[in-house]
């Protein structure tokens, strides 16, 4: 028993697999270089908040040589767009990003073939970036809007591409579990710093240092956003959230009783991105959505132990659990000193 607030730190590591588990994964995409040097991407994707639309716009812009703000991404509609399967399993950037990259390369090759003819240069010398197309080692350089005009009006070609990306996974052996569940893995680690109020058992998470390998960060701010959000969801899991059931009925049936972290409960997160590109896929990017939240809860529990010497092994570490563990600890040490 005590009145003071005590600080401590803990760390934890983690790993994760990218895309669908122990099963073949596939995604399709269509790309078209459109009038005005814009791009049209159609694939089975809707934003769920992870930033995939921006990632795909960047990928398409990079591959086609257009500006990201000139990329239009179509709606996800089973009757109007190719299958890209589900928005989950940390597979969006990896599966659909690569599918879009491949589709864009096809479309670009069609455009480049016509422009190479037009300029009478080797197709290998052609480059396109940020709305311009040029031939290396020559003076040829025109806006993409011009190039697409030439491609369509003069040569009668609409530069379209349609491609698929496959991640080759195998199922697990039914007896020993052996298999190749993923082709890309990511690794991460986090350190937590906590302040434990020994008068109430309340834990304030003050800081998280998060380091994650994402393969290649297409949009670093987006990666940070995923890490910060993942960390805070894990803070909820670690310290306060609990869907309580009593004989099948919940006592946490609304957001007054089901406790989510507020702006006053969250740590400052410092993120460091590590890039170990995936050798098997065109973009080299892997993923971050799910792996971001795996090390947080154990890092917090380890930090609580560091701060006050009690180990919480059953989540969430509520003030009540911590105070009761502290009391138990004091009782033991008193008994020890008396014996």
């Amino acid at each position: 028993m005590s009145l003071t607030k005590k600080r401590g730190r803990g760390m934890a590591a983690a790993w994760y697999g990218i895309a669908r588990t122990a099963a073949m994964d596939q995604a399709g995409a269509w790309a078209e270089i459109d009038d005005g040097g814009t791009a049209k991407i159609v694939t089975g994707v809707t934003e769920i908040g992870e930033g995939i639309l921006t990632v795909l716009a960047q990928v398409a812009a990079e591959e086609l040589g257009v500006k990201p703000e000139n990329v239009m991404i179509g709606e996800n509609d089973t009757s109007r767009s190719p299958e890209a399967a589900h928005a989950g399993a940390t597979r969006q950037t990896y599966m659909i990003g690569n599918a879009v990259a491949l589709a864009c390369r096809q479309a670009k090759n069609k455009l480049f073939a016509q422009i190479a003819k037009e300029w009478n240069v080797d197709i290998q010398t052609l480059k396109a970036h940020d709305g311009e197309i040029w031939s290396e080692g020559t003076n040829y350089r025109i806006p993409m809007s011009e190039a697409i005009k030439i491609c369509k009006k003069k040569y009668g070609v609409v530069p379209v591409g349609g491609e698929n990306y496959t991640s080759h996974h195998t199922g697990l052996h039914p007896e020993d579990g052996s298999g190749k569940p993923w082709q890309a893995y990511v690794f991460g680690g986090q350190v937590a710093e906590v302040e434990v109020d020994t008068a109430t058992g309340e834990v304030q998470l003050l800081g998280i240092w998060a380091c994650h390998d994402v393969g290649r960060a297409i949009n670093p701010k987006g990666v940070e956003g995923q890490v910060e959000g993942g960390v805070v969801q894990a803070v909820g899991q670690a310290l306060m959230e609990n869907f309580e059931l009593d004989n099948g009925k919940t006592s946490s049936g609304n957001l007054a009783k089901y406790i989510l972290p507020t702006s006053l409960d969250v740590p400052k997160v410092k993120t460091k991105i590590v890039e170990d590109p995936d050798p098997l896929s065109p973009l080299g990017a892997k993923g971050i959505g799910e792996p971001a939240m795996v090390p947080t809860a154990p890092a917090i529990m380890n930090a609580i132990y560091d701060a006050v010497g009690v180990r919480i092994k059953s989540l969430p570490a509520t003030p009540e659990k911590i105070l009761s563990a502290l009391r138990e600890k004091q009782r033991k040490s008193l008994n020890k000193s008396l014996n």
Partner: protein
Amino acid sequence: MSEIKLNLSINGKNIKRSTKSHYRLLDFLREDLDLTGTKEGCGAGECGTCSVFVNGKLIKSCLMPVAKVNGSKIETVESLGTPDKMSEVQKAFCLTGASQCGFCIPGMVMAATSTLRNNPKSSLEEIKEEMGGNICRCTGYQKIFEAVEIARDVINKKQNKNVFDKYYKPENSFIGANVKRIDAPSKVTGNLKYAADMKMQNMLHMQVLRSDRPHAKIKKIDLSKALKLKGVVTAVTSDDVPGIDNFGVFVEDQPVLAKNKVRYVGEAIVAVAAESVEIAKEALSKIKIIYEDLPCLFKSEEALKNKILIHEDYKTNVVKHIPIRKGNIDEGFAKADVIIEDDFSTQPVDHAYLEPMAGISYVDQDGVLTIVSPSQNITHHRHMMAKIMNLPIHKVRFIMSPVGGGFGGKEDMIYQGMLALLAMKTRLPIKYVMSREEDIVSTAKRHPTKTHYKMGLLNNGKITAVEIKTLSDGGAYGCSTEGVMRKAAILGAGPYHIENLKMDTIGVYTNNTPSGAFRSFGALQTEFATESMMDLASEKLNLDPFEIRRVNAFKKGDLTHTKQKLNSASINNVLDELEKLCKWDKGSSNHRGEERKDLNSSDNRESCTLGARLETNRSRVSK
């Protein structure tokens, strides 16, 4: 239904019209005026997605009867700016990437605006306090705080407003560039339409009667009184399903509506379509269900005994058992200098995405059944729906509406089937929006787990053997349990090269709320146990926690727990970078606490004591 005459100012316009007298300000804005930037996340004042200004004061419009603000001046998010003419706060939100799913964002932008209107010089602590009524489930708030601070500084001319135009971009590449989110302007202005914001002509409203029993036979469903109610169009039960009535992400065992029996509290039994939500709700109260209670199963250990079966056809309550075997653990433990054994558990957790489940269904001019919903897996949903509705697959169309947070929770197809039945039956568009309470009670949760763990190590920290057994409560239906068990098993022992491993993950049926897909999908639970064990080992062997992990970390060419050869493994690099990043003070995990030298750095936030505004003495003079 009685009406009330209103005369008020909304976003600078005088509005004179009648509305339903019991409407909340939120209903009036959304239903009558189509100002759908104001969202409904909880309906009980706990989330802040519905924040609006009334006479200059920010309030939660779900707690405000519209009659109470008659004659007042209302400002909604639509008044702050449009995508081509955003306010400083909105621009700052775009700059920092403060919006992810975007569902909380209109409310968040309103709270930020209010904070800076009340005190343009608010400190970070004051900003956090004043925005404490708005929940965000995606961002972790950090980019939101950054945005409000930037907006504040621009408003106070401490920062040039051209800061909004800039973003970092490496030379000659858009890969690795902080391109501003292309979806942000539609979110910070409240322009983006989520499923609940959509309307169609002649649209009907669906409401669902749910079980209040955890396990019971349905003896009789009496709809007669409900169907007689004026404005009720029709109702459907399990009997109306034309095709093969089951769905599930991995195991297809869940009927669209309870078939013969209910297996958890919150399971859907009857879906009613009516001309208004109010009438549909009233109809539910007139439906009579006669149950015969069955013995229940609430504990996963009990489920293993198979004395009570949740799904009679399966003859066992085990949904999935995934075994991993590598090397020989007996030999491994025999070699160990120390053996640590312990138990860990984790709780069920709700996704709590701020957008409750919602959707619209209709049958189009070509007879195509169309479902618009924030589903995370329309590809699979289309397959299952074709089978359930007995339709050729091209006669089923799914459109994925913007998702206001999913986290795995929107992978289950738990309401689209009912929408489909009613649309096919009535040939009219059907809309359904779950209340927060309904969403919490009926949707799948993160699997609660119990793990027994045994780890053998050498004195130098090298792991010689690991044995893990994790039992997960899958609840009443299979959902993603099979996949979760698989991922928990493959990843559970952590990023460590372990020669001798025995791991078992078992998921079982009970009469609890189903467990399903949730961000980090089983790995969170098992890796929590592993990383706690590593800390216990660090203390026991007097080794720094980074060091003991390095001793065991995977290297390129190592075999994983499933005996896959790793063609790259960045874990050592990650650990090095992390240790540098946080300026770790080396030492074992032996409750060093305040003796550490790395505490209290400026990387931390301030400890929250509440009352930042009391200390800086910001006050106002009351009326």
